[in-house]
């Protein structure tokens, strides 16, 4: 490791009273030896310092600040993402409680105000009650609704107005404010109205009910919103809280996860969570990685295998060495990727964005024009109330929040859902692209096939004990480092044969390997080894070998004490799930095309095995990208599925790239979607998820647009001359409250998404 790489730290500075203090602290930090740069922010009281760790340390930095006359607040050991989220959650919970209180106050008063206002509809009752007194009573009841329950709308509208930003609160504030002020005037100075031949009507019920209904909408909205981000919270909650660290002395102690350092050795017992990422040192076990990869079967782990934080140890006890902590861990990277995707905007949202940007001012103008037209055209005696009611109705119904929520909520739910299935979506745009795909281009090796050789056939010469033979061969191959040898060992291990010791191991370069096992000389290698050692094969084995060769498999020959006794065939095998996944893609109307570096015969064999009709054979690695272009030239929208770095250009060129089995490196720059699971099922899930998400978004946008485009003209009274329809402001408020809630609820349906 390069020790001179600069490190960055953040200090909380105490005692700064002005911007020049900040400049002073900054200067003294900059002058400290080893500091490359320092930036002090007066507003946040934080210093961000970049320093060389071999010349400076957080301690010397602190000394420099103290020498300058200021203090450094000791921070609690780095608060984890989960803690930060918990703090935000607590604050949100409090805000939600307050919102509910304000809502119930508004409801409580509205249910009193409503019937009292209705009294005026009974002429018999009106005779006996003084209208003036009643109006003052209503005013008294409405004031708390306005000042306590609705305070936020007026404050926000005013703040927004000063920023030349108008939001939904502006509309509600102007609407209810106008209704209230009119009522107030009618209460205080009824004479002014009666003198002009107008009834001094009051709209306290409208004011109070609108506020209650809008608050109802907000309460429901808040509740639904917490559910949209539930996936991230679940992911963060997976993190282990403590780790059992083995100290150099050998004793084991439990420490908080934040204190775990690189190169620590950690013990994990059955049933425990793996604390962080690392490499297994001793012990074997099966680990459930479903939370990270979506793979439901536990993964066997042996010394040397990577283990990941937040996964669940099922069977054995093991020790591992920590290789990653904090933000570098796989879980943290997944959380970051999901958060990034949730922050991105889908192209489909752009129109809605443009609309909502100009929406509120436009609605205000429409409302003003509505008022003017009604005032000018309605009969004189009712023109003012009619103009007012329609003005308020337009303002209230036009709230565009449903439009703003349509896409982001769906994206939030579906990216979270994807992560649950081991499908990491990089951005909302990637999700939208995946929806349009009609052709999937698969790189054979590592996607359709496992990408590593496996023993497919094993035959012993007549009279030989096959089990015994395999045991001998495995003993030799265990010593070898050749990739094919690993395949043989895996095959033998899978049959649970006991390992035998081998001596006098020698690798014969380009030929194979030899060793002595239990007194017998065992040779394993290719044809050239046989020739070099002048070993003959029995005719049966010879025909068998020819047969295997014709299937494009690699053949290994086994000889014991100079006698050819067996053949093994090794090939890259098709994954169990490939054929089913490809069939599912084809059923969705997607053409699946394969490409491979293999010769046409092998390509045809694999393609036939998994049901692919179109394939490119003998594609050189550097030509993969041009195959993508070739398909795009046919007018197709191409999803490229590849398993790694060498596929990067093709992944980047495709309309959407899906990196498969990138379990060890989440940060796949070239791919729009990363599949944590090493099989094609993830491709099916990704495409199905994107299709469902875009469908939901379209429904949301349709609802929101329809609602506003139909709602506004009705509220303005456009249908009045034809049908005599007017929209009561209270009805508008109810509809408005439900609009965003229905969009949210529709998005939440994505939580029910299940991969087939």
């Amino acid at each position, binding site marked *: 490791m390069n020790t001179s790489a600069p490190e960055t730290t953040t200090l909380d500075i105490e005692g700064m009273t002005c911007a020049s203090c900040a400049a002073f602290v*900054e200067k003294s930090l*900059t002058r400290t030896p080893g500091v490359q*740069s*320092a*930036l002090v*922010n007066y*507003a*946040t009281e*934080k210093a*961000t310092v*970049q320093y060389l760790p071999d010349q400076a340390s957080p301690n010397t930095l602190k000394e420099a600040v103290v020498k300058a006359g200021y203090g450094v607040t000791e921070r609690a050991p780095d608060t984890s993402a989960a803690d930060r989220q918990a*703090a*935000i959650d607590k*604050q949100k919970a409090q*805000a939600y409680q307050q*919102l509910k209180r304000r809502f119930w106050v508004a409801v409580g008063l509205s249910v009193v105000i409503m019937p009292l206002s209705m009294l005026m509809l009974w002429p018999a009752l009106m005779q006996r009650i003084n209208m003036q007194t009643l109006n003052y009573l209503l005013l008294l009841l409405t004031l708390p609704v306005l000042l306590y329950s609705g305070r*936020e709308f007026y*404050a*926000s*509208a*005013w*703040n*927004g*107005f*000063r*920023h*030349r*930003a*108008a*939001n*939904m*609160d502006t509309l509600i504030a102007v609407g209810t404010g106008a209704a209230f002020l009119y009522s107030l005037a009618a209460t205080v100075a009824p004479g002014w109205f009666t003198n002009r031949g107008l009834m001094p009507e009051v709209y306290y019920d409208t004011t109070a009910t609108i506020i209650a209904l809008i608050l109802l909408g907000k309460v429901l909205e*808040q509740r639904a919103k917490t559910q949209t981000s539930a996936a991230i919270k679940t992911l963060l909650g997976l993190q282990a809280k403590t780790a059992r660290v083995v100290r150099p002395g050998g004793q084991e102690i439990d420490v908080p996860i934040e204190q775990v350092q690189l190169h620590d050795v950690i013990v994990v017992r059955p049933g425990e969570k793996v604390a962080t990422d690392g490499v297994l040192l001793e012990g074997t076990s099966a680990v459930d990685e479903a939370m990270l990869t979506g793979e439901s079967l536990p993964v066997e782990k042996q010394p040397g295998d990577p283990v990941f934080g937040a996964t669940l140890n099922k069977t054995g006890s093991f020790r591992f060495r920590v290789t990653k902590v904090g933000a570098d861990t796989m879980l943290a990277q997944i959380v970051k990727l999901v*958060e*990034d995707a*949730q*922050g*991105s*905007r889908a192209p489909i949202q752009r129109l*809605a*964005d443009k609309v*909502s*940007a*100009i929406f*509120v*001012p436009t609605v*205000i*103008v429409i409302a*003003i*024009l509505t*008022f*003017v037209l009604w*005032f*000018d055209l309605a009969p*004189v005696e009712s023109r003012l109330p009619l103009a007012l009611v329609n003005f308020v109705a337009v303002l209230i119904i036009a709230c*565009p*929040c449903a439009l*703003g*929520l349509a896409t*982001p909520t769906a994206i939030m739910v579906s990216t979270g859902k994807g992560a649950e299935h081991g499908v990491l979506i990089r951005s909302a745009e990637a999700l939208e692209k995946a929806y349009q795909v009609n052709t999937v281009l698969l790189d054979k090796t590592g996607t359709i096939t496992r990408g590593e050789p496996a023993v497919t056939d094993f035959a012993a010469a007549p009279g030989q004990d096959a089990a015994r033979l395999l045991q001998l061969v495995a003993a030799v191959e265990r010593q070898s480092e050749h990739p094919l040898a690993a395949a043989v060992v895996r095959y033998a291990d899978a049959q649970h044969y006991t390992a035998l010791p081998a001596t006098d191991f020698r690798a014969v370069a380009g030929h194979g390997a030899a060793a002595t096992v239990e007194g017998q000389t065992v040779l394993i290698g290719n044809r050239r080894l046989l020739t070099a050692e002048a070993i003959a094969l029995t005719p049966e084995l010879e025909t068998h070998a020819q047969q295997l060769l014709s299937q494009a498999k690699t053949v290994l020959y086994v000889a014991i004490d100079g006698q050819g006794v067996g053949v093994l065939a090794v090939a890259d095998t098709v994954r169990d799930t490939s054929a089913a996944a490809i069939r599912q893609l084809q059923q969705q109307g997607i053409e699946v095309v394969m490409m491979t570096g293999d010769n046409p015969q092998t390509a045809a064999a694999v393609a036939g095995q998994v049901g692919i009709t179109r394939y490119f054979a003998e594609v050189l690695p550097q030509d993969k990208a041009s195959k993508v272009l070739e398909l795009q030239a046919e007018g197709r929208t191409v999803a490229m599925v590849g398993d790694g770095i060498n596929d990067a250009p093709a992944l980047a060129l495709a309309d959407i790239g899906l990196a498969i089995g990138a379990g060890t490196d989440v940060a796949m720059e070239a791919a729009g979607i990363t599949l944590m699971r090493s099989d094609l099922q993830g491709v099916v899930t990704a495409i199905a998820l994107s299709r469902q998400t875009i469908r939901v978004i379209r429904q949301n946008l349709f609802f929101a647009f329809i609602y506003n485009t139909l709602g506004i003209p009705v509220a303005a009274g456009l249908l009045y001359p034809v049908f005599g329809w007017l929209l009561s402001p209270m009805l508008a408020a109810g509809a408005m409250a439900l609009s965003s809630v229905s969009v949210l609820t529709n998005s939440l349906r994505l939580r029910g998404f299940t991969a087939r």
Partner: protein
Amino acid sequence: MDTTEILVTLGGLGLAAYVIWYFFFSTRHITTAVSGSGGIQAVAITVKGGYSPDVIEVEWGQPVQLSFYRAEDNSCSEELLIPDFSIRRELPAFQTTLVELLPQQAGRFEFTCGMGMLRGSLVVK
């Protein structure tokens, strides 16, 4: 048309014109980020019914540190979105939230609240 109608009509049209001018055509103040000695461009933004300042000019290729102080607990501003940089943050009320980004190309990048109602923009030169 009586006098009241004429007055209401003229008043209404005038008000409508004012709303259009105020929201769409009035000039906005542009704030330039202050570059610290580390080359980090820092801007403090107050969130209260909108973003002030709401138009921020930064240099291309230099890290930008935006500190958002949310001076209200109104739910409208609780989320901050900078879609071009894939940033979504929750802004806790009465707290400062740091957002760091690296503008790698020139252009105008919007930041908005969760519903897209409050708006500001980052002008990268």
